[in-house]
């Protein structure tokens, strides 16, 4: 029996087809290994739904931002000029500037804190651990939320003022702050009571602790005596939200 099997194994009949199939299988397996897996998610159905991408980085955003900044500065100067004419106009202008400051449309300065979030230098082959080692949109979002909760009056992320319509979103290797792409390190600056902000953010059990758990070097918090945050440069056009007329006035 043993001899028979030995003889059959040496029979040349099967060598040709098996060799060809081996070649194809080798090719298929290697191809399957080489094809990148999206976001480390499930093979078939786990991937996140795709959303329309914002315009690619550097597609004239900086130039437009600079233009908007200049135009807003001009508007402020004009409003100031008008207010010089009368006391009534001056009061109105003060009110206007107050509203603009509140909406983040003017450059502001004051004491506060600076938080730097950076990707870890640690390396891993496990996709889940790699995710923990990188700064994501949810990290920036949650930290900004924590800062607002702690009493901040103005926040900027990598020089982009956070205003009412600012959104944070991961898109490949960058995080979009509104429509501006940024990457690690993410510098979050906030104006407010520096001691309160610092104490609240570094308190045990806060969100920054979660990031530090992966690698303490990923988070850096410091108090600043003076910070200057730029004005919001995104769109302020409201197409649907209209001011409701004061009913008391009409009666």
């Amino acid at each position, binding site marked *: 029996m043993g001899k028979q099997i030995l003889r*059959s194994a040496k029979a040349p009949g099967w060598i040709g087809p098996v060799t060809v199939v081996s070649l194809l299988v080798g090719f298929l397996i*290697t191809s*399957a290994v080489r094809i990148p897996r999206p976001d480390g998610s499930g093979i078939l159905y786990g991937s996140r739904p795709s959303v329309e991408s914002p315009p690619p980085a550097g597609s004239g955003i900086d130039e437009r931002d600079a233009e908007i900044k200049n135009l807003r500065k001009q508007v402020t100067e004009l409003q100031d000029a008008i207010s010089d004419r009368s006391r009534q106009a001056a009061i109105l202008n003060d009110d206007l500037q107050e509203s603009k400051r509140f909406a983040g449309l003017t450059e502001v300065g004051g004491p506060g804190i600076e938080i730097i979030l950076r990707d870890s230098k640690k390396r891993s082959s496990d996709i889940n651990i790699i995710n923990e080692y990188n700064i994501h949109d949810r990290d920036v979002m949650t930290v900004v939320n924590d800062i607002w909760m702690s009493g901040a009056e103005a926040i900027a992320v990598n020089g982009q003022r956070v205003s009412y319509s600012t959104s944070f979103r991961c898109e490949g290797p960058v995080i979009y702050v509104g429509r501006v792409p940024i990457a690690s390190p993410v510098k979050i600056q906030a104006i407010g009571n520096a001691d309160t902000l610092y104490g609240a953010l570094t308190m045990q059990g806060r969100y920054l602790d979660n990031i530090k758990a992966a690698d303490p070097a990923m988070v850096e918090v410091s108090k600043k005596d003076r910070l200057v945050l730029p004005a919001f440069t995104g769109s302020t056009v409201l197409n649907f939200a209209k001011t409701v007329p004061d009913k008391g006035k009409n009666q």
Partner: protein
Amino acid sequence: MILVPLLALAIGVILALLAGAPVEQLPREYIGVAALAGLDTLFGGIRAALEDRFQSDLFVTGFVFNILLAIGLVYLGTKIGVEVYLAAVVALGGRLFLNLSIIRRHYLTKIEDARGRRKMEANQL
């Protein structure tokens, strides 16, 4: 003789590595199950050869149909939202283990036989 298919397998790996970017554009899920189906057929063929019942036509058609069936299941799964391809993975995976264990047993028996023969020859001397 078994070295020839192994060599071909290595050539296949090298070809895929040399193919560069076009390979990375292929749909991973389809290629994955196709590779598994091919591997199953390959070990099935080796087993049949060792058992002296290898048939080229069966082997080639088995290779093509197994791959087509596995790809079809993945496609069906994406359409109806059920991971039907798992059926192919389980069935092919089970057969892979079975075929590999039979191949292993075959070679172990051969080694045992060779040892027994050597012992008998030594005793005769």
